[in-house]
């Protein structure tokens, strides 16, 4: 009942020391074109459903013991993250400094220790810093998921990713189920998920319902 004041006692995970790859949620495998995400990759998520897509992609890893750093998305809905299956007890929300160099340094320090980084808008960072960061992600065999948070707003213009992603995922909501005029509530949505990238072969688009 009472607290014992000691230093932080870290987590038991029961998972292997390092996962060789991060599993993709079952309902996304067809659309993403694989059932696992290799370590060391950089992903870019955009479209109005970018954030729930990104959360769903990283959730299985956190449940298997991986640590997640959410960087520069102060408005992330933790409840939604929990509903997507993210293990919040191994999730840290980081607000790095907005200066480009310090920001890049903070992110580099995070990648040293965290398996997965979910990163929102970046301040203007030099291409050298970005290259170094991605090299570090590869060397540390982490997973970097960049989210185009601005795309969540209606009528958002697509922006070029500030990283050189291995995979670009665009999630666009085509329909919502559950609303009547005034009644009901949002239940699930039909998402058009378009996947392309230098490691993904020709672009393809899948329609799927989420939550499934």
């Amino acid at each position, binding site marked *: 009942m009472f607290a014992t*004041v000691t230093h932080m006692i870290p987590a038991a995970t029961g998972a292997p020391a390092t996962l060789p790859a991060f599993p993709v949620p079952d309902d996304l495998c067809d659309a993403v074109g694989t059932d696992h995400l290799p370590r060391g990759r950089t992903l870019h998520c955009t479209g109005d459903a970018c954030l729930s897509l990104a959360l769903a992609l990283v959730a299985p890893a956190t449940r298997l013991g991986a640590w997640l750093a959410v960087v520069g998305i102060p408005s992330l809905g933790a409840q939604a993250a929990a509903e997507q299956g993210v293990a919040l007890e191994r999730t*840290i929300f980081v607000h790095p400094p907005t200066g480009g160099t310090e920001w890049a340094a903070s992110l580099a320090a995070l990648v040293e220790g965290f398996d997965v980084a979910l990163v929102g808008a970046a301040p203007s960072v030099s291409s050298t810093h970005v290259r170094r960061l991605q090299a570090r992600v590869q060397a540390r065999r982490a997973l970097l998921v960049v989210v185009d948070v601005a795309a969540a707003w209606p009528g*958002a213009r697509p922006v070029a990713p500030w990283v050189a992603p291995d995979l670009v995922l665009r999630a*666009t909501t085509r329909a919502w189920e559950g609303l009547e005029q005034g009644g*009901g509530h949002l239940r699930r949505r039909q998402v058009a998920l378009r996947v392309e990238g230098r490691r993904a072969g020709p672009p393809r688009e899948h329609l799927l319902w989420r939550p499934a």
Partner: protein
Amino acid sequence: MRWADALATLGDQVPLLEPAAEGRCIFAARGPSRVMGGDDEMARRLVALVAAHAIPGARARVGVGVADSRFAALVAAHEALTASIPVVVAPGDTPAWLAPRTVRLLARCAEVEPEVVGLLERLGLARLGDLAALEESLVAGRFGALGLEMHRLARGDDRHPVLVVAPPPVASCREVFDGAIPDAATVVAAAARLAGPFLAHFAARGALVTHVAVRCEHESPSGFGAFERLWYLPEGCTAATLVERVGWMLRDRRGGAVTALEVRAEGARAATGRQLGLWGGRSPGDDAALRAIDRLHATLGEAALRVAAPSGGRDPAEAYAFVPLAARGEDAAAPSPWRGAIPRPSPALLAAPGAPIEVCDAAGARVRVSARHEPSGEPARVRLGARDFAVVGWAGPWPVEERWWDPSRRRRRARMQVVVRDDTGAHVAMLVALEDGAWRVAALYA
């Protein structure tokens, strides 16, 4: 007999006496009860003890109550005062014992405002048992955090139990004076000096001290002595409260000049922070993450690193709070869903403090929500900055009234889910809220 003398007399018989207010004190009964041969015998002896020390001719009435929670024990003690015999509630019987009693006791014994108690009565909740029988989420939905607290009291639970055993590693600070200090001001100044490092020790670990024991050792021509008090500070000990308590103790003291002062933490809880990580053991991955956290702590400062802790609330933004990394403490369990919470799925992006937006009906007039929670028209268009979107679906409005019993702090708003279609064909869902006549985006289902 002065209250301070009564405290001192009791303090010789029971360990860790907790003065609650003038005329009231609380202690964990298990130990003394065992020593004195049971609750009834203990209560009888304490009454006799205080009565024996009473000034002849002065009216000193003593009531002793024993129960499973602080609140129930206090209620029992009040009844004991009227009945002139101790009231002992058997272990486990506290909820049933409280049930038939009036909710007004919440005001008398637990500092709940009388207006709130009046509201409970008007809602038909005259007995504590009526309140305890309600679902917790329902009370929370109606009264917020205060409701949870009242529900807990009515059930016979305590926010923090009265200390029975001291938790392990006890942290204390001690100052031994060069020679005995006769004047209180110098001792209080010493308390202020001790408070800094003492509290910093806990703050650095993200903990709040809820039970602090203060010990004064003194010396007089008749010999050496010491007196000790336990202070229960549910909101957490601060330097100011600690110094104040030491001042009270010195004002009421017996004995001579003070030779040493000691403050000791007997209980602590997490400073609204949340324990990071889980139970036992650790993996190499955990070590690496914690090292990275340590490094970032050092370079970015504590404010830059947060964890999500369930906090409970009707709005998506209130369900979790981002709190600083903290030492381990009592970990809040995920709260049961609040009545009036928006059903799942929850929005992934919260738009705090809320971008202004205009929600209009087909005629272009702003949609308003009546006191009966009915919209003035069907939402047809949504204007966001200079842009305008067609509404393809909507639900609500769902009202929220917070602190509705307090006209100066009440907050009333209506929330609605709207789905708009943009020029790319995307159906973007938003949670919008109307408050003080203005619509804002509360969250996006990103």
